[in-house]
């Protein structure tokens, strides 16, 4: 760890004297991003940065000159001048002029950023503690997107993957060459949806729908990663965003696939499942969606996250058990899973909980029962 740190440090110091292109590799600076807006913002950033650098050079230059030349140890005698209206006016007027010059491009860019009209794709983004929900308006496509980095990686029990903390189960897919409008809101506390490469950062606020937009040019297909940027509770650091820009054609195909998958799932829910099938599937769903809080073996975690092995609810009344998984429990980390998981997954995971780790309810929750409970 340490030797790598020092290696990197020395290369960074060297890099300052080398070309800016190399510096970009080391991510010292704001990304230029892939949209017009992100480029304009980057330009503004560099402009104001160089203005500051030059003011700094002049001011600190004079200061260090005095420090070296006007020191008592060199026999400097203090002069007693202490006022100059001319100078005061000069250094009020000059910065004012610079700032006005700076305000002009900043204003133009801001006006562009606020122009959310004429969007071709509308995506509603809802922040939840601690995941994002995406709904493609008018397309009948919607889903939740969860962090996939494992607890083992986070707690240093296995090596960390390349996209540590920046990977999710479902990407938010968008077409290139089209103006996309994001409608951003929240279901609980304030979050902020941020993808640096497209320079979109907007707070997700309960009761508000904020708008923002991006147009990713054709040819810039790819994965763009971001994170929640507003403190939203304990797992604020663990709700990333992965934006996948694809061509218009691929986007349409993807939408069709999503709809087909949703239909297949709904149809499947009406089919029959054996207890064994549900147990197998339930184990998968549990590992993916529940184990982070309730433990891999249903053993719970600390005093906040209850054990499910032996839990009164998980071995007791079925309706109550279904209710807490579907609707969550207000004011606790136990969230509503009704919209997050399909009927089959829900039936499977509840069946699993009732019959795994020594729990012996012995009954089976079917997808049909979930559909009924949802009504």
């Amino acid at each position, binding site marked *: 760890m340490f030797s790598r740190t020092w290696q990197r440090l020395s290369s960074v110091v060297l890099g300052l004297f080398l070309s800016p292109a190399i510096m970009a590799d080391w991510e010292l600076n704001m*990304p230029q991003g892939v949209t017009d807006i992100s480029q304009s913002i980057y330009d503004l950033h560099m402009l104001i940065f160089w203005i500051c650098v030059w003011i700094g050079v002049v001011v600190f230059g004079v200061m260090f000159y005095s420090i070296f030349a006007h020191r*008592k140890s060199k026999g400097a005698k203090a002069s007693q001048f202490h006022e100059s209206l001319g100078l005061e006016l000069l250094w009020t007027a000059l910065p004012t002029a610079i700032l006005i010059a700076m305000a002009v491009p900043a204003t133009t860019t801001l006006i562009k950023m606020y122009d959310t009209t004429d969007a071709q794709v509308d995506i509603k983004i809802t922040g939840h503690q601690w995941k994002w929900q995406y709904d493609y308006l008018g397309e009948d496509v919607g889903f939740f997107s969860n962090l996939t980095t494992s607890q083992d990686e986070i707690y240093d029990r296995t090596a960390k993957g390349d996209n540590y903390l920046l990977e999710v189960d479902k990407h938010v897919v968008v077409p290139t060459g089209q103006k996309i409008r994001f409608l951003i809101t929240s279901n609980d506390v304030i979050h902020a949806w941020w993808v640096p490469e497209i320079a979109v950062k907007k707070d997700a606020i309960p009761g508000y729908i904020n708008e923002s937009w991006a147009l990713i040019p054709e040819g810039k297909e790819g994965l763009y990663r971001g994170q929640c940027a507003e403190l939203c509770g304990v797992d604020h650091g663990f709700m990333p965003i992965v934006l996948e820009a694809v061509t218009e054609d691929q986007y349409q195909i993807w939408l069709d696939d999503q709809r087909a998958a949703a239909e297949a799932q709904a149809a499947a829910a009406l089919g029959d499942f054996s207890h064994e099938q549900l147990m197998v599937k339930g184990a998968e769903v549990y590992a993916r969606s529940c184990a982070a809080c309730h433990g891999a073996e249903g053993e719970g975690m600390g005093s906040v996250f209850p054990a499910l092995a032996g839990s009164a609810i998980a071995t007791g009344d079925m309706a109550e058990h279904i209710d807490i998984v579907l609707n969550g429990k207000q004011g606790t980390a136990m969230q509503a899973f009704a919209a997050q998981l399909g009927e089959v997954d829900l039936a499977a995971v509840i069946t699993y909980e009732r019959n795994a780790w020594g729990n012996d309810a012995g009954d089976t929750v079917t997808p049909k029962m979930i559909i009924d409970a949802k009504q």
Partner: protein
Amino acid sequence: MTTATAHHDDHGHHGPAKGIMRWVLTTNHKDIGSMYLWFSFTMLFIGGAMALIIRSELFQPGMQLIEPEFFNQMTTMHGLIMVFGVVMPAFVGLANWMVPLMVGAPDMALPRMNNWSFWILPFAFGMLLLTLFTEAGAPNFGWTFYAPLSTTYAPSSVTFFIFGVHMMGISSIMGAINIVVTILNLRAPGMTLMKMPLFVWTWLITAYLLIAVMPVLAGVVTMMLMDIHFGTSFFDAAGGGDPVLFQHVFWFFGHPEVYIMILPAFGIVSQIIPTFARKPLFGYASMVYATSSIAFLSFIVWAHHMFTVGLPLETELFFMYATMLIAIPTGVKVFNWVSTMFRGSMTFETPMLFALAFVVLFTIGGFSGLMLAIAPADFQYHDTYFVVAHFHYVLVPGALFGIIAGVYYWLPKWTGNYYDEKLGKFHFWMSFIGVNVTFFPMHFIGLAGMPRRIPDYALQFADFNAIATVGAFIFGFSQLVLLYVVIKSIRGGEKATDEVWEGAEGLEWTIPSPAPYHTFAEPPHVK
């Protein structure tokens, strides 16, 4: 008449009471000033320990030492303690000690209230700190405590937090009133407003800011209290309330608050630089006007903390322009300091070193502030480590270095002994290196996209985080040197003269060192 004078003289010479009750009951501005300063110093080590816990967890990616929940408690408590428990009390302590000495007053105007405004503080912070040991844990919603995270979703300790904020607020308001009254009523004959030392001026303006905005803070926490316990919905969208309203009210307090934390430091630096440059402060009047404009502007820039909440375009533009404006008077101050040094006859004792570092590093913080003011760019900067770098540059080598510079500058007057100059310089250089190694890399990781207030981060941020942690430990531990230097100077050392510093001017340098328990029983005359 003669007996009255005799009695007065007698009174003038009696010393402090003995034992612990001296401190509990004291109404003496010097005692109370010292208590404020020791309180602040204690809190600096507590808040600093929390910072080191945070930095240790962030040393490398992955969760190693603490859980995310405790991490959030640490960031919240660290911020609250540093702002309300370190910077503000330290400035009030310096004002208590120095304002009466600088204006030639025998004491603060309202000495009993002075005692009370200090003694509230240990209880407020004691209560806040005790929440760490409750089952629900300490407040975990950030020092900006945005609703609804701090209301509907808050741990139960939030009620203690609200009560604590009320107590701190009362203390600050009382302290501020006392300072205003002292400055306006107890100046020595001949000391017109425009002859007041700049430290007095900046504190006068700061005190008005405090009186104006602390009630707003009290208001916002009271609204939270109502939401949490009495069924109102000020900030609850589900009940027809407005979470954004919280931020408007909070930052209407919050932005003036950041100037409350810097204006007195401007004052201190404006005392120190002329002394060690042996040359009068350049542009005294423009300094006063610049400080007043900053104070005025600080009321109309608050929404620059809210550029991403979805304000209307016109609002956004207004706050961008207003924020850019504030850089102008701030610049004037920096130019004046530099001109004061120009063609002076400078020496570099520890207070001067801290003051010079203040000018350079505060200006760097001002530059990043100017960058943040550019609203479109702020969409990329906001809530990243770039903001963390910005406010630490203005607060640590800004406010805190200002305080430390003042402590070194006035310490010989307080204790009667010079501090150990070698150790002072050592402390300076360690702090200077520590601060920059800690906070400069944060600009880079912020620009590269690391959000603030996260306990764990993606791999590309690893190297600079490791460096920042190393810097934090250097900075943190070098403050122990300051503790040692202060104690050493209290215990003894080379005796200080009355003037203390060769180029120092002002009433505080006309009294003996150490300053007697009672000073200026007879007001001096200022020509």
